């Protein structure tokens, strides 16, 4: 070929087709989605916790998209029904994830509602799940000699508790746990209506 204009325009048309299919059409399709009745917007604290989840890259090991029952046994693992686009209307950035080095967290709040469990598990996952390969997050906690007023103490199994110190949860840890507790998409959604 001798003509650079043909090259450039051909290349751009090919990309435009792809962009229309993967960016523009989904945009038009989900733009006017309404949130399901059972889905509440995130609270201020949950949004802060979500930011902690994002900045520490939890998404690289945990998905938030249970699959359909005829594709994978996600439901029988207690991860919940298959998710639908409307479940994500408040999500920015999206946290669908692409790895399950750890379990899906779309309904972790329903599966594991305990604040103490979450705090302790973040401090040392192997105190609760011995075979876990999740990193420990000691930097989300502070070690003190004695608790002060207003401190959220972390209750740990004796094996994981530091000797002579108490473990106090930071704001970030408390926010993150609030977000995790709020991850509950067990409300029913109607199946998409068939267009006549």
């Amino acid at each position, binding site marked *: 070929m001798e003509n*650079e204009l043909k090259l450039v325009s051909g290349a751009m048309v090919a990309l435009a087709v792809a962009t229309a299919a993967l960016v523009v059409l989904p945009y038009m399709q989900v733009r006017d989605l309404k949130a399901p009745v059972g889905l509440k917007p995130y609270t201020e604290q949950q949004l802060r916790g979500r930011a902690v989840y994002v900045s520490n890259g939890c998404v690289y090991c945990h998905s938030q998209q249970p699959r359909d029952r005829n594709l994978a046994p996600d439901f029988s693992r207690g991860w919940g029904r298959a998710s639908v686009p409307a479940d994500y209307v408040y999500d920015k950035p999206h946290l669908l994830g692409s790895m399950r080095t750890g379990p899906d967290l779309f309904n972790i709040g329903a599966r594991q509602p305990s604040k103490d469990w979450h705090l302790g598990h973040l401090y040392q996952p192997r105190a609760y799940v011995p075979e876990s390969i999740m*990193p420990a997050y000691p930097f989300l906690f502070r070690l003190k000699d004695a608790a002060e007023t207003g401190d959220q103490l972390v209750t740990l199994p004796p094996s994981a508790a530091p000797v002579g110190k108490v473990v106090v949860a930071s704001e970030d840890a408390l926010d993150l746990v609030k977000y995790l507790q709020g991850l509950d998409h067990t409300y029913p959604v109607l199946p998409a209506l068939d267009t006549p």
Partner: protein
Amino acid sequence: MDSAILSLLGAFLLSIIGLFGFIWSLRKGLLVENPAAASVIFARGEVGKIDDPALSEDEQQEMQAAVQTGTVLAVDAAEIADRVDADRSSAFPVFMFIAFACFWLLIGSFAGLISSFKLHEPDWLVQQAWLSFGRIRSVHLNAVIYGWSSNAALAVILWVLPRLLRTRLHGAIWAMVGGTFINAGIVAGIGAIAAGWTDGMEYLEIPWQIDIFIFAGFALIILSALYTLVNRRVEHLYVSVWYMIAALLWFAVLFFVANLPGVHTGVQQATTNWWYGHNALGLWFTPVSVGAIYYFLPKIIGRPVVSYNLSLLGFWTLAFFYGQVGGHHLIGGPIPGWLTTLSIVQSVMMIIPVIAFTINMKGTLKGQMHLARYSPTLRFMMFGGLMYLASSVQGSFEALRSVNSVTHFTHFTVAHAHLGMYAFVSMVMFGAIYFMLPRVLDWEWPYPRLITLHFWLAAVGMAIYFIGLSIGGWLQGMAMLDAARSFNESVTLTAPWLKSRSVGGLLMTLGHLVFVGHFFAMALRFGPHRTGAALFWQSKELAHGK
């Protein structure tokens, strides 16, 4: 209308369009081979001459003897002079991009190695937030994708374009300003990720505020490339030019659209994320690497590609199919069904450009495979080309629903990504740098054996990495699909394979230390051989033409 009727109608229309395309190509004579176009990378009389600047004079003569072509004609001196001018004009920017690439390669390797160790030593280095897995893993990804691979790709583009367009690099200073912007952006971006400031999406972690700098830098480099293109002194645009110019423009659009703040949300953001994520490989690294192979491989063995038209078919099918495959990252996810299906179909269609490329390279190398024994550069190129075939065919099958239900969400995907980005793209970039740098610096590689050592460390490391992690990922996927087995089982059974991945990664990192060390030794003019110094200027000029 019924979807069955719609798809039948679509297939009918596509066949008609395909038929017209075929008739048109016959009329334009596109199915008649075009050896003249395939030979534009050679100066007049140069076909049949091997070219590997990474070899010493003696080794080059040995390799030339192994080619066993009959007559070797005199090479057109004017065209060689043009090429020397082209190389001289691009030398400084290309050196700058290679130096940046080497720096990021080391950072990325160590960050990757730390991440890999953390998956089997989860309590190692947990006290600092920036060293925790979720962050250091993203540091690794951004350092190798934007730092190493993109800088290396830009170096290749800026070096090959002036040669193929038979002109000097126009606007070289703007390319260098652009490179400074990009690398300042990457430094800031990686710092931001380590500090916890991220846009939160895979491949799009760098905050959009910093992306503005990267985009501006990229735009400056495109301007320089386009300015060189319009000032060309050849009639015919060789296929590598197509791949590289298209890749530059594609990546600019991808990067811009995907990073637009405040537009994308929810599920649509996920499809955009993977449209970008897969196209960064498909429409940026792949075309640059394929374009590089189309230039370097025939150039090294001194023989034009056998079927030039097949390379054009490869280009247009890649351009059309590759852009639409991103949805296969969300199979089974909450996105419209038609989108997943479209992406699966186009993923399988990707077999066409890959097969076209492979047939072409196999034909070009026919009877010349033994040259790989002589030329380490050729070895890197052949390895990379073969791995393009492997990773792309693997990717096509991985997109099928039946396979994907096992491999999705597992380490199998990670192994596949490294097969594409390392065994294919990075190996081609290594080979290209070994070829380019002696021309850029007018200096020989001081310790040629290190090139061979680097090759084997990288190849063996990659093999251990890929084979182990693929097995581990597959077992992990099978365990996750079996409702009778606990989730924890899918975690524990990967442990030995995650360790083998660390071993592979360690070997690759050692290879990178050898490579970067060698680069420094060359840049600082070390080494026993000192050809190319001012005293030997005349002979160097002649050697350039080989």
